[in-house]
């Protein structure tokens, strides 16, 4: 197990291409980063094996398949004894596309898709006995599926680029 895999500039260039378009052929990636197709394939396999690339996924627009409503729900004040039940409800509710455990009083953040407000209300109703929900409906997405770049990781602890406030 490599505990700290080192990526060189070419690995980063490949990662960049695959984050932007995961269906590019190895030949096309190779052309873009200046490698042969087998060399690209080998590097991709190494990054997959190291767990750096977790998977490749098509991104579906929920509104276009019948889910015009996207909601972010914070679920709070869940009693310890109800946690298992809440997790079971989350598991069995396919409209919850994402469930995140967070620190603090909220505990759970859910990303929910729904066909209507009534449908959303019905889904949220499943939690009513176990805690309090605070829901915001998505109005606008400003940033999503951002490509992770090499400079995302270049944090310099001594850099003095923080604004005064």
């Amino acid at each position, binding site marked *: 197990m490599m505990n700290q*895999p080192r990526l060189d500039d070419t690995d980063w260039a490949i*990662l960049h291409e*695959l*984050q*932007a378009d*995961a*269906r590019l052929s190895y030949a096309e990636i190779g052309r873009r980063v200046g490698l042969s197709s087998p060399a690209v394939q080998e590097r991709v396999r190494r990054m997959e094996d*190291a*767990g*750096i*690339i*977790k*998977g*490749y*996924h*098509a*991104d*579906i*627009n929920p509104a*276009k*398949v*019948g889910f015009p409503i996207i909601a*972010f729900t914070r679920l709070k004040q869940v009693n310890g004894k109800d946690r298992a039940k809440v*997790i079971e409800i*989350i*598991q069995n509710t*396919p*409209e*919850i*596309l*994402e*469930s*995140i*455990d*967070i*620190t*603090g009083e*909220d505990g759970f*953040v859910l990303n929910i*898709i729904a066909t209507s407000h009534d449908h959303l209300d019905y889904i949220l109703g499943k939690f009513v006995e176990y805690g309090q929900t605070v829901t*915001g*409906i*998505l*109005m*606008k*997405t*400003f*940033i*999503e599926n*951002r490509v*992770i*770049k090499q400079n*995302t*990781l270049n*944090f310099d602890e001594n*850099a003095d*680029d*923080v*604004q005064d*406030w």
Partner: protein
Amino acid sequence: MKLDKTDWAILEELQQDARLSYAELGRRVGLSSPAVQERTRRLEDAGIIEGYHAKVNLKQLNVPLMAIIRLINIDTHETKEKVVEILRKLPEVTECYQVTGEDEFVIHMYAQSMEHMSNIKMHFAHYARLVTSIVIRKPIDGRVISLESFPYLEETD
């Protein structure tokens, strides 16, 4: 666009593995490679498939922290635009949504350390009240949207 069972099967396969070849995809859904390619193109053109993305595990790259930050009480439209402009320049911020309710923005960000996170937050901390939650884990992350999960969608146009 009306989706039939085969379209849904294609969507399901590509959500699970976006790098399947058309030949393999066709084999799985019972179509020839050109036929599956044609249907995939239609799903893309209709905006149903918005893109294909490799998912990078930042934990493996020494970026262990993820936070969800709510930016509350952003007072004016101008401030909102300013905040979005700042967030777009910060590579650590991977998602930014505007939502209804008292929370104006919900952002997701990654950091190497608490100090790193704190430095990033300084860039926009004076425009809003920040509520930061550290992500412990994501037990469900990008669940596949499938006809099997949502049988009531069969009527959908």
